[in-house]
């Protein structure tokens, strides 16, 4: 079997690549190799499924007919074990070989399995794939207490889902704060308070030594003493690029597959996009991985367009995240943790806003921002996002003459920006 376009993966990056290819080439056959089962689902929505707010059907972001309509063959349970660049073939686990004209590696990430003694011997749950979510949901239906190992993004999403099911939570995080990738220390402090106020047991700066079973429950032993006992354990120790398909070569990889600004690897006609690709960073121009949905979509689209023969360049990825957890909305953009030489501008606490911060580099351009509060401040972060992308100077934001408070803002507390401190 062979096809001019073969895509390894079936999520954000691969779907965007289909879009990119079809903008240029309306007919060339596309094969999608999905190591899971079924049409694409939204990974971002999995916690909502665990919490019972969405059905399996709701999770699907493509139907089978969508693939057919676009001339895409979806091959399911098709795990790729190797790529032969010279023969232009990918090797599947079941022995089949698929020939390609252009190949996209969009295999995403896999969960990191933390080195915890006894982890294999007790039931524990990840929240990464649809199957993970199914298992977690089934376990949560029978549980009244849970320990979440890892207070990062996925860990907190799992915690939020379990909280909605009225499960009593304990969260263990290695870093001295929650969400170390998403929040600066002050943001982490404010957020931890909100989590604590919900009655969650927090163990920050703690590592798990071992886990074991005890009377049908799971026992979590912390390093340096302390034990947590619960009905179920969720593990979220981060994710790493899924490089299994290039284990035997051929493309150069560091943490992820190294790609140029057309998303092409060092092997001609082999591209990579999404969590698995190490691509240009918008702010530093160095290569990095932002394992987030928006980056996967942008990179996938650029890769697809280039695969179909139209040359376009990727402007670089910018970290961005927004999530509502424990009744707090948090959002971050770019380099929100200041580096030496950066200026930090704290903005006034508007109604409903807990913490708002803009980071400005030596040249005076806005490079990052962070927000904690209610949902009203997020639209403003969108405007800042646009400003970062066009290298806007801080002056533009600071001198920006903002509309006066309107009836709507005064009565209903819709957020507004009032810069109060500028160094």
């Amino acid at each position, binding site marked *: 079997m062979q096809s001019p376009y073969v895509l390894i993966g079936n999520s954000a990056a691969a779907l965007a690549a289909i879009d990119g290819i079809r903008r240029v080439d309306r007919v060339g056959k596309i094969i999608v190799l999905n190591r899971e089962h079924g049409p694409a689902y939204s990974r971002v929505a999995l916690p909502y499924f665990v919490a019972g707010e969405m059905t399996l059907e709701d999770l699907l972001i493509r139907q089978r007919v969508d693939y057919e309509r676009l001339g895409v063959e979806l091959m399911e349970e098709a795990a790729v074990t190797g790529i032969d660049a010279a023969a232009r073939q990918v090797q599947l686990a079941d022995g089949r070989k698929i020939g390609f004209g252009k190949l996209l590696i969009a295999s995403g990430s896999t969960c990191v399995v933390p080195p915890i003694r006894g982890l294999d011997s007790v039931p524990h749950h990840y929240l990464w794939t649809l199957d993970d979510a199914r298992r977690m949901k089934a376990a949560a239906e029978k549980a009244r207490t849970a320990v979440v190992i890892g207070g990062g993004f996925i860990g907190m999403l799992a915690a939020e889902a379990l909280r909605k099911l009225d499960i009593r939570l304990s969260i263990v995080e290695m870093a001295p704060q929650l969400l170390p990738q998403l929040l600066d220390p002050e943001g982490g402090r404010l957020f931890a308070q909100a989590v604590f106020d919900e009655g969650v047991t927090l163990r920050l700066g703690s590592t798990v030594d071992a886990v074991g079973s005890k009377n049908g429950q799971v026992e979590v032993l912390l390093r340096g003493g302390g034990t947590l006992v619960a009905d179920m354990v969720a593990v979220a120790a981060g994710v790493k690029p899924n490089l299994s398909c290039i284990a035997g070569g051929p493309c150069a990889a560091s943490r992820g597959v190294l790609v140029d600004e057309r998303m092409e690897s060092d092997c001609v006609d082999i591209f990579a996009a999404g969590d698995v690709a190490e691509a240009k960073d918008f702010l530093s121009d160095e290569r990095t991985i932002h394992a987030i949905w928006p980056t996967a*979509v942008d990179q996938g689209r650029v890769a697809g367009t280039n695969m179909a023969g139209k040359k376009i360049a990727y402007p670089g990825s910018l970290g961005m995240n927004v999530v509502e957890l424990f009744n707090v909305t948090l959002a971050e953009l770019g380099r929100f943790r200041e580096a030496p030489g950066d200026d930090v501008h704290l903005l006034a606490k508007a109604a409903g806003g807990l913490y708002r911060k803009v980071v400005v580099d030596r040249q005076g351009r806005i490079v990052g921002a962070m927000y904690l509060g209610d*949902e009203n401040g997020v639209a403003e972060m969108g405007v800042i*996002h646009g400003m970062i*992308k066009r290298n806007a100077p801080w002056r533009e934001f600071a001198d920006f003459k903002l509309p006066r408070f309107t009836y709507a803002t005064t*009565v209903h507390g819709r957020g507004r920006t009032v810069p109060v401190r500028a160094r």
Partner: protein
Amino acid sequence: MKQIVVHQEKCTACRECEVACSFAHEGVFVPALSRIRVNDFYEEQFYLPMTCVHCADAPCATVCPTVAIQKEPDGQILVHEDRCIGCKMCLLACPFGVMGFQPEVGVAQNCDLCRNIPEGPQCVQFCVPEALEYAEVETAAAATQKIYAATIQQSLSTQQ
């Protein structure tokens, strides 16, 4: 496509549009719930209503992880509330800050051009100074060009 065209120079910041929008969609007269917002600079007497512009290549739709935001065949950017999980990625992606969020329902919302109301956009219907118009964008662009051309023409003839 037809969309809401703003004639900024005619706006008086009376906020009828906000009230009409809120009533049409939520059944209450609460400007804060409006999907169109009048930005006011009273000292300069400059008022600018802003709402979703239904971008051709909309960042909100591109970024939406549950394909809840889609471009309809008529060009409208529509939030399918039943698919929206309220993640707010669209708010973070919109460079104009015009994507809104309904905390009560937990979904994103933008101007839907009053697609379910036969009379068309209510903000336009109730705009007394006629600062809002529901028009084909191409026609509106041509009209705007004429206005600016006329302004330049006038200023040049005054100089002479």
